[in-house]
């Protein structure tokens, strides 16, 4: 685990948090969907509870990313991370805006959905762009 040992402490904390939240997400999503689709009728409060429980690890990933910005003690790396999150936000807003108007003009049936997932995908895309020539 040479890579792990040479990793900055803030990156180690970030990696552990991301792994924990992603593992929690898989477990919670699987369990919640199994429960919701078990055939039994569920009340509105239960459904809201399931939605909040399933959203929790995704919100946790957002928290972990923004904690990374706070905890990075290397200011140039923090600048690059901040640039990456701003690029991801800008790309997501572009996609969502176009998608919204596609719905307005009846090109697609549904408007923007899964924006958190889109943002995560854009964060991945923004990484090499923010670090290009860095």
């Amino acid at each position, binding site marked *: 685990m040479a890579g792990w040992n040479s990793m900055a402490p803030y990156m180690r904390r970030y990696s552990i948090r991301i792994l924990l939240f992603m593992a929690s997400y898989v477990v919670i999503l699987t369990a919640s969907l199994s429960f919701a689709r078990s055939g039994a009728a569920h009340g509105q409060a239960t459904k809201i509870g399931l939605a909040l429980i399933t959203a929790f690890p995704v919100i946790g990933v957002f928290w972990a990313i923004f904690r990374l910005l706070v905890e990075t003690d290397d*200011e*140039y*790396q923090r600048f690059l991370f901040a640039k990456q999150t701003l690029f991801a936000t800008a790309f997501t807003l572009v996609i969502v805006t176009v998608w919204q108007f596609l719905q307005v003009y009846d090109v697609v049936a549904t408007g923007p959905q899964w924006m958190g997932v889109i943002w995560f995908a854009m964060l991945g895309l923004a990484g090499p762009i923010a670090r290009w020539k860095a």
Partner: protein
Amino acid sequence: MVCHAGSGRTDCALESMKNRLKVLRAERDWSQQDLADALGVSRQSVNAIETGKYDPSLPLAFRIADVFDLAIEAIFLRD
């Protein structure tokens, strides 16, 4: 920042500071990684500062000055 006044408006262009990091490192036979370790930052950060892609904050500039045992203005130049 360099500003030029002309024809009723002021044009300002962001320019990075020049610095003597590469020369100072060479004098001490330090690699970028050696300096990065002394400063507690990544080698990529030292490279970005050295090549003028990134101007360090005042606290980091003071840390760099301490590592070289020089005044900030002996390392970072006005233009």
